[in-house]
């Protein structure tokens, strides 16, 4: 089982971002996805800068993948997409069918979690177009994944989002700008102030969602460290950890140790609690509402 670090979903100052990836370079992560996937206005890193980070990580032995924007609306978004798709150096994760259209038949690609691959026929189709790996939509469960992997005829790796705040929804409206009473066109990049997004609570004070520019995430942290065995048994090849502003390196090490059986599942479950920015959830994997925590497979095991 390989470990992947998903694309950074937040907007960080350049220095923080570079320091972050220098730290990642010395972790036991196998694959690193890079690039801005949330908002096309975010610009502290140009493609050339991402390529510098990519080369640094590649020289540290990491497999590097460049991720494309999820919401491609304008001609300038398409131009950026072309530049990523046509980079001659690194693999590309397609997060929109427009990206698949540019990549198919030309270059092996990774089918990202937003392509809505919900069944084996669509998975076979995407594989036939050149996808060598696919990332399962976050809302799918183990029970829904199993028959897909049983019956596909293609050879394709499967990756599952296994740790981090869930990217739940995208809009063209910027919710951070809305919070600041600013129009998106004059957003002043205030999302730079929220390294882990901006928390949204219900009116009775319960952590609910997180505002991250045009993206809405779960406030609870999706955490499948207690479910690694079921992933291995189902034939999952890669687990994805989503970046957060602190503790990413420790989380990667814990997942690695857990997979290598250097720590027990029980202690891993206990240890990860101190690294979570909020309580955890694992409902989707267990066929429940995503917000829920399946106690039998999750934290109860720690008892």
């Amino acid at each position, binding site marked *: 089982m390989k470990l992947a670090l998903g694309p950074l979903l937040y907007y960080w100052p350049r220095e923080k971002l570079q320091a972050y990836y220098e730290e990642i370079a010395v972790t036991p992560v196998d694959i690193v996805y890079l690039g801005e996937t949330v908002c096309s206005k975010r610009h502290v890193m140009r493609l050339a800068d991402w390529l510098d980070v990519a080369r640094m990580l590649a020289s540290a032995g990491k497999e590097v993948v460049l991720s494309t924007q999820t919401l491609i609306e304008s001609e300038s978004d398409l131009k950026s997409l072309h530049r990523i798709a046509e980079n001659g150096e690194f693999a590309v994760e397609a997060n929109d069918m427009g990206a698949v259209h540019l990549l198919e038949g030309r270059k092996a690609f990774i089918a990202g979690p937003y392509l809505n691959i919900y069944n084996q026929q669509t998975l076979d189709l995407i594989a036939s177009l050149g996808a060598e790996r696919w990332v399962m939509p976050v809302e799918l469960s183990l029970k*829904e994944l199993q028959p897909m992997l049983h019956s596909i005829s293609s050879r394709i790796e499967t990756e599952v989002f296994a740790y981090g705040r869930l990217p*739940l929804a995208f809009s063209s409206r910027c919710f951070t700008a809305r919070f600041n009473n600013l129009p998106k066109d004059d957003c002043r990049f205030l999302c730079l102030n929220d390294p882990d997004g901006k928390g949204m609570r219900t009116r009775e004070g319960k952590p609910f969602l997180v505002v991250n520019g045009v993206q809405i995430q779960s406030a609870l942290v999706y955490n499948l460290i207690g479910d690694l065995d079921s992933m291995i048994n189902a034939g999952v090849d890669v687990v994805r950890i989503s970046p957060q502003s602190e503790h990413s390196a420790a989380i990667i090490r814990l997942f690695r140790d857990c997979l290598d059986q250097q720590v027990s599942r029980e202690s891993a479950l206990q240890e990860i609690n101190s690294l979570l920015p909020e309580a955890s959830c694992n409902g989707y994997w267990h066929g*429940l509402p995503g917000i829920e925590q399946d106690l039998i497979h999750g934290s109860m095991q720690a008892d």
Partner: protein
Amino acid sequence: MQPEYKLELICPAGSLPALKVAVDNGADCVYLGFRDETNARNFTGLNFDASTASKGVGYAHTKGAKVFLALNTYPHAHGRERWTNAIDQAAELGIDAIILADPGLMQYAMKTHPCLQLHLSVQGSATNYEAINFYHEHFGIRRAVLPRVLSFAQVEELSRGTPVELELFGFGGLCVMVEGRCSLSSYVTGVSPNSCGVCSPPKAVRWQQTSKGLESRLNGVLIDRYTDAENAGYPTLCKGRFEVAGETYYTMEEPTSLNTLELLPELLRIKVRGLKIEGRQRSPAYVAQVTRVWREAIDQCSKNPEAFFVKPAWSAELGKISEGQQHTLGAYHRPWK
């Protein structure tokens, strides 16, 4: 020879009576779904079985209207036959086009029923011409329904890059998220538009009068709380009030409806092919009212786009039946973003 350009008015039919009044009031096309999770309005008491669908197709065709069938959810590995059977049935019923989101189903439809016209559903999340052309090249889709997130300028730009006809939402419920890319509902309730055809389902809703006001909850999560002076709205997840950094407000969107009447001349100018009215879950009376207003508006605008203006009577009529009694141009008008 190119057929003459015409903007089609496409109206929702959640039931046979709604279909009939839509046709009678001037819909060029109606769209409907079967009574299960194969479509994105999978609500109890709504939609068609084979017999009512057959009657509906007969009624519409006799009066010169087309019928589109929405099969726009994503089938899971188990039970996909329900979707493929529905496609077979559509071909048998003489449905004019099926509206699909799942590429695997498009492949099935294209191979099994090559004459069946395919439209790309809004649930396909195609917001750029490269994505639309992908579906066109692989499956021969004739038309794409655009998510309600593009500005009008972006729609116009997109229209230049594809031979595929475009259909836009003109009136009704407003999804603030990109359709097909929203799992908020499954996060809270376990069912989502993508996989089950429902968002914020009624069975998960609880209303409770408390000392702090009337509370609406979805699967236990507090979506909003209303004082006696406030109108309580259906607890659609993205239209609740939540608290961010000490401020409680509609963090994602107010309860409001999309209304693009004033954009009609522009839509005709760039030759948008379909104008879609949302609301298969609404009553026949609603469908009749909305269809009547839009028929009149489209006819007037088609005759003389330069002189077109939105009649106050139309706005008043639509205002009465809009969610939260509010209208917005949504993303078509850039400052909304």
